[in-house]
């Protein structure tokens, strides 16, 4: 009774008699009602947030197929994967040697060329054409473009230089150009 206000008589006359534990019926109803409404409101937040995530048709574009049979050594093509450019390059032996000549420990984002390509297709380098700094498209995939100081890719926005294995060597980008998940069967490259 200590938790209720007023005299016991006043409470009784007001129809507000509390139980032996001092909890009024009204307190219980209030807490239950607010809780139910609150939980219901919170549940509604989930769809409101989730609706902003990529929709089914955007997710459905998450694989890209490419025939690389005609890709000559030293040549590169740009493909589109998830609305972003992908660079597919068949490396020359010189480019492979250049990439393997670098001590891996000296790199900002230590990876060997072998780790960035697939077994049996070490000469096929597939990377996202998205600079890891702020997302510009680096140059170097098309003929005649600036390949930067390390003969790979060069991002003109803020001057990131990538080497022949598309690893970051100089400039503000924090990591190597991303290698997407992909599989190669015969001459068909499937990204995603």
């Amino acid at each position, binding site marked *: 009774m200590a938790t209720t206000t007023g005299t016991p008589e006043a409470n009784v006359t007001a129809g507000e008699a509390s139980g032996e534990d001092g909890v009024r019926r009204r307190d219980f109803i209030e807490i239950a009602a607010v809780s139910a409404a609150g939980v219901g409101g919170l549940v509604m937040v989930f769809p409101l*947030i989730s609706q*902003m*995530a*990529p*929709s089914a048709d*955007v997710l459905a574009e998450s694989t890209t197929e490419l025939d690389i049979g005609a890709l000559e050594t030293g040549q590169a093509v*740009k493909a*589109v994967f*998830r*609305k*972003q*450019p992908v660079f597919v390059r068949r490396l020359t032996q010189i480019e492979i040697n250049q990439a393997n000549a670098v001590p891996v420990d000296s790199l900002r984002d230590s990876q060997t060329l072998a780790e960035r390509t697939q077994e049996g297709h070490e000469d096929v380098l597939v990377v996202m*054409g998205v600079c890891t*700094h*702020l*997302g*510009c*498209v680096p140059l170097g995939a098309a003929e005649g473009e600036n390949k930067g100081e390390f003969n790979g890719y060069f*991002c*003109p*926005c*803020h*001057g990131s230089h990538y080497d022949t294995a598309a690893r970051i060597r100089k400039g*503000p980008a*924090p990591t190597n150009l991303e290698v997407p998940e992909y599989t190669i069967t015969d001459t068909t490259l499937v990204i995603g």
Partner: protein
Amino acid sequence: MSFPWAKEYEPKYGLTKFFDEKLPLPRLVYNAVGAGYPVPRNLSYFWNFGVLAGFCLMLQIVTGIVLAMHYAADSGIAFGSVEHIMRDVNWGWLMRYAHANGASFFFMVIYIHIFRGFFYASYKPPREMIWLLGVVIFLLMMATAFMGYVLPWGQMSFWGAKVITGLFGAIPIVGEPLQIWLLGGYAPDNAALNRFFSLHYLLPFVIAGAVILHIWALHIPGSSNPTGVEIKQESDTLPFHPYYTAKDGFGLGVFLLLFFIFLFFMPNMLGHPDNYIPANPLSTPALIVPEWYFYPFYAILRAFTFDFILPAKLWGVLAMFASILVWFFLPWLDRGPVRSGHYRPLFRKFFWFGLIPCMAALFYLGGAHAEEPYIMFSQLATAYYFLHFLVILPIVSSIERPDPMPYSITEAVLGSDKKAVLGENAEPVAV
């Protein structure tokens, strides 16, 4: 609160009496921007910019609603629909140029408004809440302007959206999912364009709401003034109407002249030509820059080129947000008892020869290529910017000896105040 000598609204006609009883809206207006609001009699033209900012908000909302009647937020036709507005829609060119240049002028006005606040320390008690709401309005304006710039879906729109949402990707762990969630995809596309349009339409009304709170909070202590001396008596004030409605009207005329020079004679001067190229996700423009009004913050973002515990990119993002968030703490960073820069000799020097050149440099550097020597200058200016607010201002405001101040606004204006504590012939005393 209002001052006891404020004129009271007295409806004269049947209709105004009817309204005053049922819905006292005319009374509200009378007390807010009419004769019922006593204002310091010594306000300079720097006090025009609040009204000008309000005008700009209205201009943007009106032209924006018109543009939305003709614009299509679809990545396939957005660019074309903007050209349709420019070429086919009756007066469409006027509406779009007024909206685009209106955004620029809105920011010009707001920067002067903010720097007025810096110089006269308008953020000091009892006006902290007005200042905090003002910073919130500025942040909302930045978000609105950014999303609006994406809508024409030109090259700068697209790459601006990519770079700015890419900032969120710098946040550890949650960054990349957050970026994908914000864009509704892996790169800016239809989903991003549509939600930006939706929010670009919504936020101006949120700003309008915040402006009402800003003005509400202003009317509690009343406007500050160039002396920084609070209102003491009726002779310190004038009714807002007709004195300041007239002064603001004149200021608005001057503002419109400048605005029209840009609107009618060089409407693309403040824009970027690359945004007349349709968005191409596979080709990056040689120089990605935001609109001029974001240059200082873009310069701060790009100033961080070295890793130090955290990656450089994250430092840049943190510094950029911090450069505005630090304004929230100004009322407590500035510890001096005197408001106005006119009576603060040391503060004034650091304002004119420190903060202003620093901001001017950041404005220039944000639009420059990210190469030396610009990067080094950006780093120096960024360092000074934070030094000013976090170190110089607290120290200067603690140690400086302010100049003698007038007893009242009346004395500042008329040279003497009969009600001054020490009598009519008293000399001004140092506070």
